């Protein structure tokens, strides 16, 4: 069991956190395209007073926005948009 192989170490002094919970949005786990490398950030992107989750990924340098609905609920993801298609960060290879 991977549960047994994963150890969460709480530092004796310093920040203390609850065990990790995988985030979901729109009824599915928040995940990125292959080969992975999910890079999260939290910001009120749409200015509605609720925090939103933005997740960058390696493939094509794209970012997916999961709008916060309040109460810890996230809407299904949508790509951050550029001029005509998804906004992209260059130089990710």
């Amino acid at each position: 069991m991977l549960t047994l192989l994963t150890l969460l170490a709480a530092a004796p002094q310093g920040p203390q956190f609850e065990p990790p919970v995988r985030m979901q949005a729109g009824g599915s786990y928040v995940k990125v395209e292959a080969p992975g490398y999910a890079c999260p950030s939290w910001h009120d992107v749409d200015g509605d007073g609720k925090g939103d989750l933005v997740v960058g990924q390696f493939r094509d340098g794209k970012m997916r926005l999961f709008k916060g609905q309040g109460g810890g609920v996230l809407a299904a993801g949508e790509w951050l948009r550029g001029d005509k298609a998804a906004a992209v960060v260059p130089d990710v290879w």
Partner: protein
Amino acid sequence: MELTGDGIADVLSGTYSRKGKDMAGLLYVLPGRKDGTFGKAEPLKAANGEPLVLPQGEGENGVVDRICTRQWLCDLDGDGSNDLVVGNFRGTFAWFRGGKDGFAPAASWLQADDKPMTVAHHGDPCLADLDGDGDLDLVSGSSDGDVVWFANAGSRTAPKFAAAKTILVAPPRTNVVDDGEPQPIALGEDHFRAPGSDTRVFVADVDGDGKLDLLVGDSVTAYTAKGGLAEADVQAKHAAWSKKQRAFFQQPSGDGDDAQRKWQEGYEALEKERDAFVTEERTGYVWLLRGK
């Protein structure tokens, strides 16, 4: 974050490396627009008008100091101007000081416990007052998946970081060429219980309870059994296959085109053998660790 002064959130991102010139992971700004879209990415520049580039170390591997960037914007020294802390492939952290005219073009390397501040690889800085003492601590993910915390033992205006403490230990990974027993594979995405490797972190009060939470992104490989095989059977097959794979990689590949071709054929045959009983998906999830 807001960088362009128009009150609309922008995107600031690190990169792996620019192409066509000497390798360097530039930082890019995608300006936010009123309609919710983002403009074309432009390099973030220093006060002298040149793109911000991390200093390069000496020697053949010095380039790893300036690629695979990941940044955090904050007023680290409390002087009223935003600074940039930037991680890199090596796992160290550069500090570009900000001033009234912008960012200094040269950076210094952050120290922790009077030594270069370092994580395994892929420095991933996120600065926040995690211990509630009024200054900015640094937390970072890493390539091996550990999440580490560097307490700021200095002050709001004179940061001084303590030695690293690991706050999240990554699960063990099988090295295909070592002698350890193969690790069980994750059959189906519900098997994951904690972040995997290549962690990226972000600190914010996500659940709105007034305490700082930790978001962790990762990279994992998820597997799906083929042909209705039971999980135990798949694990046994994969363990046997892993040992075969290890033996393959422990053999010298040889020199010359023929040897390389044979090695490639052998590698592809191995992959095909595994594909007969399981499919592989590389992905990454986002985890929330609520602050206590």
